């Protein structure tokens, strides 16, 4: 009794204290962000993730930038003008782009920006082209290949990049001439003309300006002189191949930065924090904030307290914890931010059979599925009708997500709000499954396993929902859902063992091509994991339209083609479109000047400042 009262009393005291203790504005000239992002490299041309992208965005600059929240309007940054057909800086039907370069801009180390630096930056990014990196976005429009290795293989007729070299890593003499020619192609694509830089594209490329805009690290401008001093590519054709696809740790720009942006790097304490400081010699007004610290704090409860006490100005909040901070004083929650990301369940049209534990007997006998189970369009459609979007979006996303109407997300050209979409419909699902495999699927049933990478609750629930509804439809439809370590998932995915798998895609640049190509193009990022039959389908049905849409400059005409692509997507159902989530931003109310742009990786610290309410 006495202890009970004592406990109650002390809790009351604690509650009073915590409600009284409204945090004061701390560190008025510093912004502290507590997040879970793991910065992995500071080389803008190597980086391809948002945590690194946020740092790069604030330290390096591009030729142009998005105008505020817009995705289609640009302002000049290191260029003095945004090219357009009207001002004559886009020519040859969209194959030549001319950028006049700004004068009087200095890098953080004091070197002055020259047009030579700009040309060097783009060539460096193309040559670097690391495995799994972002350089393909420049290579495709400028050289017509998605990678340097593809280009070399095609031009020099070698089976692989490694075949170019002798045992001790020297270029075989017979390839020297060819390699020089390839360098000339790279060199010609981006050229300095007086105080201008000219880009020569191999074909008109409607999203080209998007690919160059601020936020795209691959198009960030570095200082040639400084890079060479760090031991980077000297900008000459000699042995350029030595600077191709470096190991991350051997990349000279891995942990050093020297940009022209409003902030400069002070310290990258690996796994702990990154500290940036205002660039006092910035070519525009210096930033209002003196310092930015991006702290990595893994535990949510700790981040929450840092935010509450005002020691962090903004924190990363996992969706399920949002209710915990809704009533917190001095906190601003901005909801419903449209993201350019889409989550998809992909069917594997040719599942590997040997040693595959996820497809039961490997036959259509009710105890497994055959390799090409999902090659039958009725199977795929049946599954599409089994997903209950309304419940899923309400329960998992608290209503803050959209059901996509096609692979092009809301907010981009080609998004069709009235496009055909699947809905949760057991009747139609039954109809489709009865047609599948000449009715054998319905009569015999099936059995397989869906894997998800453990820890990803959104994916777990989606998979379980499919499994539950399938069993409800027909007790012979048996799907097991299992969470595995990422390493296992990765291995099984790349081997082609997974019958179906869930993947997300975040836009590289805001253009429908960046969604139709990876998901529907035969050379798309995930097509390889969907099997040979899927690739064949894409070649016939999607590739011609995808290519056609890129040859047209007029947005109205392009839109029509993207509508058509997505109608075909509906018809062939190569995947289930799960959702397009809405973003949330959480910060202290004393942070001012924040605005949203879905293409920006993290914060634009230049726009921010702190002031008590």
């Amino acid at each position, binding site marked *: 009794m006495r202890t009970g009262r004592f406990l109650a009393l002390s809790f009351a005291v*604690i509650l009073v*204290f*915590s409600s009284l*203790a409204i945090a004061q504005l701390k*560190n008025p000239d*510093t912004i*502290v962000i507590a997040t879970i992002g*793991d*910065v*992995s*490299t500071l080389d803008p041309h190597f980086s*391809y*993730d948002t945590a690194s992208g946020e740092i790069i965005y604030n330290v390096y600059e591009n030729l142009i930038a998005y105008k505020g929240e817009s995705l289609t309007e640009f302002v000049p940054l290191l260029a003095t003008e945004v090219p357009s057909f009207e001002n004559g800086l886009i020519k040859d039907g969209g194959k030549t782009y001319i950028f006049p370069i700004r004068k009087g801009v200095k890098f953080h180390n004091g070197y002055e920006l020259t047009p030579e630096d700009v040309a060097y930056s783009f060539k460096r990014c193309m040559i670097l082209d690391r*495995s*799994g*990196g*972002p350089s*393909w976005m420049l290579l495709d429009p400028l050289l017509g290949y998605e990678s340097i290795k593809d280009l070399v293989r095609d031009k020099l007729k070698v089976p*692989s990049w490694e075949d170019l070299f002798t045992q001790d890593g020297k270029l075989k003499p017979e390839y020297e001439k060819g390699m020089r020619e390839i360098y000339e192609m790279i060199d010609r694509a981006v050229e300095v003309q007086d105080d201008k830089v000219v880009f020569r594209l191999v074909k008109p490329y409607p999203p080209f300006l998007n690919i160059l805009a601020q936020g795209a690290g691959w198009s960030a401008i570095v200082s040639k002189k400084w890079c060479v001093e760090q031991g980077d590519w000297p900008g000459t054709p000699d042995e350029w191949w030595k600077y191709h696809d470096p*190991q*991350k*740790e051997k990349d000279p720009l891995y942990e050093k930065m020297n940009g022209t942006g409003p902030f400069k790097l*002070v*310290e990258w304490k*690996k*796994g*702990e924090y990154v*500290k940036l400081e205002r660039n006092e010699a910035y070519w525009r007004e210096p930033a209002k904030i003196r310092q930015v*610290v991006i*702290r990595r*704090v*893994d*535990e949510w*409860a*700790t981040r929450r*307290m*840092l935010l*509450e*006490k005002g*020691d962090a100005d903004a924190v990363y909040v996992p969706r399920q914890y949002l209710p915990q901070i809704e009533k917190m004083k001095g906190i601003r929650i901005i909801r419903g931010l449209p993201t350019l990301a889409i989550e998809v369940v992909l069917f594997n049209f040719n599942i590997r059979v040997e040693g595959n534990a996820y497809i039961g007997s490997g036959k259509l006998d009710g105890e497994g599925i055959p390799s090409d189970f999902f090659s039958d369009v009725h199977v795929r459609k049946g599954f599409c009708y089994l997903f209950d979007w309304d419940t899923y979006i309400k329960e998992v996303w608290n209503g803050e997500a959209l059901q996509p109407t096609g692979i092009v997300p809301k907010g981009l050209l080609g998004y069709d709000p009235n496009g055909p979409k699947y809905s949760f419909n057991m009747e139609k699902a039954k109809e489709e499954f009865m047609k599948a495999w000449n009715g054998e699927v319905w009569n015999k049933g099936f059995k397989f396993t869906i894997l998800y*990478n453990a820890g990803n609750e959104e994916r777990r629930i989606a998979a379980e929902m499919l499994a539950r509804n399938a069993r409800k439809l027909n007790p012979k439809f048996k799907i097991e859902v299992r969470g595995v*370590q*990422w*390493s*296992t998932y*990765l*291995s099984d*995915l*790349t*081997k082609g063992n997974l019958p179906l798998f869930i*993947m*997300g*895609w*975040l836009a590289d640049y805001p253009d429908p091509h960046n969604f139709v190509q*990876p998901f529907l193009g035969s050379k798309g*990022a995930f097509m*390889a994991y969907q099997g040979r039959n899927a690739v064949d389908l894409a070649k016939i049905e999607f590739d011609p339209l995808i290519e056609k849409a890129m040859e047209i400059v007029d947005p109205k005409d392009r839109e029509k083609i993207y509508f058509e692509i997505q109608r075909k997507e509906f018809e062939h159902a190569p995947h289930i479109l799960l959702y397009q989530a809405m973003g949330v931003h959480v910060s202290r109310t004393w942070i001012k000047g924040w605005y949203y742009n879905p293409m920006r990786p993290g914060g634009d610290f230049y726009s921010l400042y702190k002031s008590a309410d």
Partner: protein
Amino acid sequence: MLAYIVRRLLILPFILIGVTFLVFFMMQFLDPVQRLAAYIKSPEELKNLSSEDIERLIKRYGLDRPLWVQYLEWVKKIVHLDLGWSEVAHQPVKDAILSRFPATLELALFAVFPVIWVGIWLGVISAVHRDRLLDQVIRVFAIIGWSLPSFVFGIFILFILYGVLGLFPPGRLSLWAQAVVSSQEFKSYTGLLVIDGILNGRFDVALDALRHLVGPIITLSYLWWAFILRITRSSMLEALNKEYITTARAKGVPERLVIHRHAKRNALIPVVTVAGMMVLGLLGGVVITETIFDYPGIGRLAATASQQLDYPLILGITLFYGFLLVVGNLIVDVLYAIIDPRVRLE
């Protein structure tokens, strides 16, 4: 004794070869692509990676070579003190361990007194007041601590000390102190910030570092007291029942001396063993406490390394732990000899 120490140290390399080979051997159960998970850390990183790229990455990191070849390569590099590159830590393994270990060492050093000393003290009181109210209260109090999950108690302590009182924030240093430590003028002698602060004449920095240690130390103390308390208590009770104690009492030795000089000294032998293990445990890092208090110790690093199968880092840390364990046990053995003259190290 010297011969004993030398002999023990001579075994060291063999133990290290043994443990690292064991870890290496476990790798056999993973296929090369699984081990690539350290380099391709999330589904997002698959974005522009073809199966050909995956093959290339496997070749680049030599993940497809026979096990013994990989092991020999690794050993060859170790001889040159090159532990390889850690993709998880984004730096060479050696740097990662050297940058995280001082934080862990500092926490361990400051935790030893409250965790072990106070634990022993509580155990002695408990034994002396055997089965009386004080004994019961202390034991119940300690057992509650032992049964609490560290993530619950840690968050509770953080909430009280930081959330409510605003006194002891998470992290290792405040913003301003961080700036001082990273500045040119501040010399890093030991990596232990309290000591470095004092050596640099920056007592404010030392105090700030100390302030950040309070939360983890309270958490660890309360969670670990029961362990050391129970050992001390039972070993004390045994000692107090010995005949020489009765003799001492009969001689008229004051009770305080009976307890502290006669009984406690003898009771401490098993405690030293356990305490030694605990210190080694602290030096190995305390994952959950570090995570909650955002303390950059080595425990979190090791946990992430094993989660993401960062083999170079796992091996590096194994090597490091193996070294610590051997040397630590040696120190414990030497301590025995000092506490108990009957123990001879030969």
